[in-house]
């Protein structure tokens, strides 16, 4: 396997010497995410780096609650291995296609329905082995739960979209699968649904996911049977059949809401933010902290409205899916943050070759 990492390292070194952009691409399931730049493998103007051959679980000790896998390992395979031992990736990552890899999962930094209760990808990253923009093989963090030696570069990699380095191996904390899950369906209006999601999150109830759409609040309970039963009695609502399919359709964006082909905005806001009035339809997750907007149009005015709404709600907005829009995908950073962001990029990738423009057009 070392020859594979050596090969990847040589490719990065060569690209750095020639200042050729490197597009890191695993399963290609998240090609749509971020600023889309054309893949160019043949004209010699850029290099596509495909690490999917670097695959396999390096180390998995269920009783340590830690798994270490190579970047090309498919998410489906990793999750299947964990479930054999009744464990899971608690951040419930979206796959967006059968080819999704763990490297892409961490680089994209996207979490699914369980995020509000269990935590995000970055919360479960314990360590990484990576190649930086010079092709140097570096390791940060480790395979243990607690580690305060050095800055937390491993967590920094989560969501950095391959702009700081190519992840080779990732160690993640895993958690036991809940003994029982039950989803409740509660007819509700939007304002009341937001109020209740916040109310219940403030009580010691095992709520593991929430979704409001079209006048219905879906709420998933996960845990020991007595806890789930007791919570059902308190919350009420009828039990949803086909719950697993429902949550999977929300996570994978196969739910009818996501299939309209309209531009999709992802709004991350304070969970108590009242209903946001924006042009389009919305679906709410994460106890009110995540609002998806299928926008009526891709126009400038909609963008301004969305950015303003999230600014006043203490959050940020991402143009998650679009049809080749020229709008900024990610929320603009304040000048002070942009200054540090640029410098970090320069330190990890001095020649600016790793996924340039994918996150912010400036680098």
């Amino acid at each position, binding site marked *: 396997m070392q020859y594979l990492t050596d090969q990847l390292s040589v490719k990065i070194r060569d690209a750095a010497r020639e200042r050729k952009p490197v597009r890191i691409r695993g399963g290609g399931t998240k090609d749509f995410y971020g600023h889309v730049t054309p893949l160019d493998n043949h004209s010699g103007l850029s290099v596509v780096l495909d690490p999917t051959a670097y695959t396999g679980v390096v180390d998995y000790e269920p*009783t*340590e*609650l830690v798994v270490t896998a190579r970047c090309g390992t498919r998410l489906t395979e990793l999750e299947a291995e964990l479930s054999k031992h009744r464990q899971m990736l608690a951040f419930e990552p979206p796959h967006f296609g059968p080819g999704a890899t763990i490297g892409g999962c961490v680089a994209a*930094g996207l979490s699914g329905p369980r*995020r*509000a209760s269990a935590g*995000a990808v*970055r*919360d479960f990253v314990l360590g990484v082995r990576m190649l*930086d923009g010079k092709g*140097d093989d*570096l*390791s*940060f963090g*480790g*395979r*243990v*739960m*607690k*580690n*305060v*030696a*050095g*800055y*937390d*570069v491993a*967590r*920094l990699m*989560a969501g*950095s979209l391959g702009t700081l380095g190519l992840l080779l191996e990732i160690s993640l904390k895993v958690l*036991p699968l809940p003994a029982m899950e039950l989803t409740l369906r509660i007819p509700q209006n939007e304002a009341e649904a937001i109020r209740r999601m*916040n109310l219940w*999150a*403030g*009580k*010691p109830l095992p709520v593991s996911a929430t979704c409001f759409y079209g006048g219905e609040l879906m709420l998933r309970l996960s*845990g*020991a049977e*007595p*806890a789930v039963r007791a919570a059902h009695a308190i919350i009420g609502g009828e039990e949803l059949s086909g719950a697993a399919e429902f949550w999977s359709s929300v996570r994978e964006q196969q739910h009818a809401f996501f299939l309209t082909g309209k531009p999709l905005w992802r709004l*991350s*806001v*304070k969970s108590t933010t009242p209903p946001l009035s924006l042009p389009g339809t919305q679906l709410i997750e994460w106890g009110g*902290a995540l609002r998806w907007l299928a926008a009526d149009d891709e126009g400038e005015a909609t963008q301004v409205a969305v950015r303003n709404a999230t600014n006043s*709600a203490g959050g*940020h907005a*991402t143009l998650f899916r679009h049809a080749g829009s020229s709008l900024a995908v*990610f929320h603009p950073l*304040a*000048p*002070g*943050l942009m*200054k*540090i*962001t640029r*410098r*970090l990029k320069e*330190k*990890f990738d001095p020649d600016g070759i790793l996924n340039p423009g994918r996150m*912010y057009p400036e680098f």
Partner: protein
Amino acid sequence: MNAFKLAAQLRAFLPSEAVLHEIEDVRPYECDGLSAYRQLPMVVALPQTEEEVVEIVRVCHAADVPIVARGAGTGLSGGALPLSEGLLLSLAKLKRILEIDPVARTARVQPGVRNLAISEAAAPYGLYYAPDPSSQIACTIGGNVAENSGGVHCLKYGLTVHNILRLRVVTVEGDILEIGSDGLDAPGYDLLALMSGSEGMLGIVTEVTVKLIPRPEKAQVVLAAFGDIRAAGNAVANVIAAGIIPAGMEMMDQITTRAVEEFIHAGYNLEAAAILLCESDGGAEEVAGEVRRINEIMTKSGAIDIRISRDEVERLRFWAGRKAAFPAAGRISPDYYCMDGTIPRKNLASILSGIEALSAKYGLRCMNVFHAGDGNLHPLILYDANRPGELELTEEFGARILQMCIEAGGTITGEHGVGVEKINQMCAQFKPRELEIFHAVKAAFDPSGLLNPGKAVPTLRRCAEHGAMHVHQGKEKFPELPRF
């Protein structure tokens, strides 16, 4: 710049009592919880507002004066050790709780607010702030961010990095950064992760928004005694394998239980080679079910004696012994030296037998307390600094333990931080290129290198030698604080 000139510049906008430079005034700031290292700062500043912090940083930046930020000064690795030519920036007076939002379950606080004060303020709403480092009655949230503090409940509830949402940070260049958001994530790189555990080297935190979570209805603890350490280690693995994430899971070896029982009378089995404390929390029925399962697992794992707390008084008594482990070390030995390695738990038995062998080799006793759930080991080496050569032997012993932790796939510090104490061990854990990346991260935030220079990340030149935490009886900085 000399002390008088700097003090004068600071007094231009700070009240005179907020600027200290007389030796007797700055003396209380000469060390943090790691009192073996002492250094008088040139000047101490005690701002009360963020504007004052910005002004102080501007003055220091312009005059090229290094800044060491400090909260309550309870840290155990010398992270807040002053510099003789530097400013000691105490954030203890920024201690207002700015807002508790019981519906959104957040608290917005200034950095000098004590950890426990947040939970106290949230208690009327049935909420609390989860990370509970042992020094939580005194340590500040700003310091917790700097050290990424944990606590005995962190396997289930996470470390500081998992429980903060947003920071306001003053950079050395005088910018105010809002890192994180009121939502669950933020655009761009995860700077919140970098700030957590950055030991005051990247920026000065002036405001922290933390997550509050609902207080569980009930907690109960299972106290299990084992005839040998290996069986106790296996019991921990068996609990996890059964799909249980205990709220707390602590282990003590026999020398420790005997030392604490003498004055705490927690009721520990003194014939046992090791005891385990395994806590369950949640709804009443849920806890009853989980405790029953833990009891069965402990029995099957070979426990020679199991007790289950019958009420809150008994639960706290079982815990009292664990929490008294550090003071107990101070009772049975003139000095002790605390290590803070983390290991993959499966290697516990081999590490402990390694420590036993070293103990025999060096002729020094060692007590072992262990955050068993998350693999964080605190060997307490007992020694007498008044015996010539014993301190050096102890340091060598300690370095060998940390080396074993690294070799076992672990780390040199699980929760106490690197500070000045473990800066040399960083050389053993990281390759030069990795240390260079750490320096680069610092430079991205602090190009002038004025924030807490010389801590946490060794220069490549320096990589040699070793060190660790020393507590000299009667000379501890905070003898009254619990440490576990």
